[in-house]
Each structure stands twice: as C-alpha cells, then as structure tokens.
C-alpha cells in the first residue's frame, strides 16, 4: 500500500500478480464474457493506480476496495453494453445456477492462487446461508439487482426480499469480520 501511494510502478505490477485472478474471476462471474471481463481488469488496475490516494486503510482493507471497484466496473459494463443475446443464450444455465451452488466447483489449479484460503472462507459463509437468503445475496451482488428487481425476478414480496437480505448481510458480516488482506 505504502509503495503504491509512493507511485512505485513495480508495486502495481505486484498487486496485479496477487489480485489479477480474483479481479478477473469476479468480472467474469458478473459478465460471463472473457473479453469483457479482461477489459474490466485493465480498467480496474488503471483506476486503482489513479485513485490509490483515496483509499483509507483505516476504513477498510485493500483487497475489498479493489474488488468493489471491479464489481462496479463489471456491473457498469453489464448495464451499459447489455449483451442481451449472450445473456439470453445462458438464460437456462443462469436460472439453473440460481438454485444451485454459489459457485461452480474449483479447478484444481485454482487452489494455488494466492488468497485461496480467504476465498474458501467467503465461499463457506455463503454456502452456510439458507438457500433463499443466498439467492438474494447472489442476485444483489453479482447481478447488481435492486430489491424490487430481485422481488420481481423471484416472484416474492418486496418486504420478504429486504428481510432476507438484511438477515443474510448480518450473518455474513459476523462470519467474515475477521478477514484481513493477505497482501503485505
């Protein structure tokens, strides 16, 4: 962090090495498109470099900050570009996935990526949620849907969706509050 703020270019390269797979994974999860996800990755690290002075370590760790930039960028791309066709082609798969696991089973080589234990913890926290709570969290986080949109998508009352999200947020917050950056 200190080296990044000192505008040391090598520090950004090291940050990319550590977080590139996670940023790409998150962007791909949201966009479902390799080329678009890679474009987001390039934008994210440019934004990190440009705005590193705005990050306040007292208010949060670096990894979640970078991931929040990645999520916002990916959701912007999702809304702006509206790749309706690709999404439509994956319609069935997405609907099936909504009712299933939070994420597909990892490939063996993924476990070698730095930060993997933290991924497992977040994954486990999500998996521990009841199905109906996990679904609303995934729709809100990975598809950027509003409460009303989630309610429409699931055919549930708005109040029910809000309640589920609130409960899920509390549980995740309690379970993940001990997490810290694994970066130096």
């Amino acid at each position: 962090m200190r080296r990044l703020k000192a505008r040391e270019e090598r520090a950004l390269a090291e940050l990319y090495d550590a977080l590139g797979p996670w940023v790409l994974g998150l962007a791909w999860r949201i966009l479902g498109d390799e080329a678009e996800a890679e474009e987001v990755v390039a934008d994210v690290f440019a934004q990190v470099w440009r705005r590193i002075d705005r990050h306040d370590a007292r208010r949060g760790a670096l990894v979640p900050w970078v991931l929040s930039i990645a999520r916002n960028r990916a959701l912007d791309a999702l809304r702006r570009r509206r790749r309706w066709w690709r999404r439509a082609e994956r319609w069935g798969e997405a609907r099936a996935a909504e009712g299933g696991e939070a994420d597909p089973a990892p490939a063996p080589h993924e476990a070698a990526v730095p930060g993997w234990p933290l991924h497992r913890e977040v994954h486990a926290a999500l998996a521990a949620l009841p199905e109906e709570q996990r679904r609303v969290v995934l729709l809100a986080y990975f598809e950027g849907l509003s409460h009303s949109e989630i309610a429409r998508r699931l055919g549930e009352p708005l109040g029910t969706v809000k309640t589920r999200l609130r409960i899920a947020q509390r549980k995740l917050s309690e379970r993940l509050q001990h997490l810290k950056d694994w970066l130096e």
Partner: protein
Amino acid sequence: MTDWLGMAASPRIPPPELKARALARAFAARRPRGWGVAAGAAAAALALALAGGAVWARRTIGALAAERARLAARVAALEDTVATFIHGPATRLVQIPVAVGGRVGSVTIFADAVRHRWLVRCDGLAPNAPDRAYQFWYLTDRGVEPAALMPMDQDQPMVMALELPAATRVRGVAMSIEPRAGSAEPRGTMLFRLAL
C-alpha cells in the same frame, strides 16, 4: 458485509498479455503532462482549422452530431426491441444448429406469441457465395411461405425481426440456400426444416 463477497467468485488465471495491457493503461493514465501537451496541440490545431474554415467545420460538426444522435436513437430502439423479446412472458426460445459450408452455426429464434413477431439471430453461418443467399421460410397451414432473405457476405452474426404472416398459423420454420434474389418457394439446399 459485502466487502469480501467478491472473493466468492472463483479465480481465473489471466492471459499473459493482460498484465502488460492493464499496466500500460494505468501508467498511461497517470501522465497528465504528456496528455496535456497532446491536448493542447490538438486544441491549437483545431483552432487553426476553425480559423481556416469555420463554416465547413461547423457544418461537419453539426452533421456528425446529428448522425451520432440518429445512431444513438437507433441503438436505443433496438435495445428496447430486444429487451421486449427477451423478457416477454410469452417469448419462446428455439435454437437450431445449422451445418453449412463445413462449419456448424446456429439460428436462434425468440418467438413472441403475443405480438406475433420473431426475433431471429444467425451465428456462425458460412458467408454465402456471391450469387446465393440464405432464405428463411414459414411452414404454415397454407404451405411454405417466404419469411426473409438473408444474403450473408461477412462472417458476422445477423439479427432481424420478422412479422408472422396474418390469417394463418405458423407451424414450423425452414431455411435453405437460394439464388441471391430469393425464391418464391424453396428450391435450393434445405439446411433445416423444423416443426414448432
């Protein structure tokens, strides 16, 4: 709470060239002086151009702005149309693999039963010979009726919206390769014929 949720997505190993692209974009963005000089030079050049031909420039900019607005409106209208099809409660999705010219593409149909319209997308189809075109057919109670002619010169996806024929029921769909000007009934190679 959602601070760490991004870590729930499985990591993906970036392609090797992405690192150079990401870093180049970052470091390019932090050189305001260089960009400032470039922007200044561009502004000076623009000022000279304006001084030399203000009327021409004004007309050109006006025409470009109008063209941009027209294209933006067209894209917005297209997005609305596509969204209506995809999210319509009565929309049915049919995907048909098509083997032609030694490759396998697909034809995807979004059939809107309420508005009696179809949105058709062709992907991965081999470009036609210069004197040939793909032709799409409705299979109706009255027989085979032409739906659309799709000359394909480039290796690119093609999208079109079709109105269903009135006063008859469409029971299926077919696609064949016909002369460039189209045929009244299918005579060429039939690529698929499907009952819906």
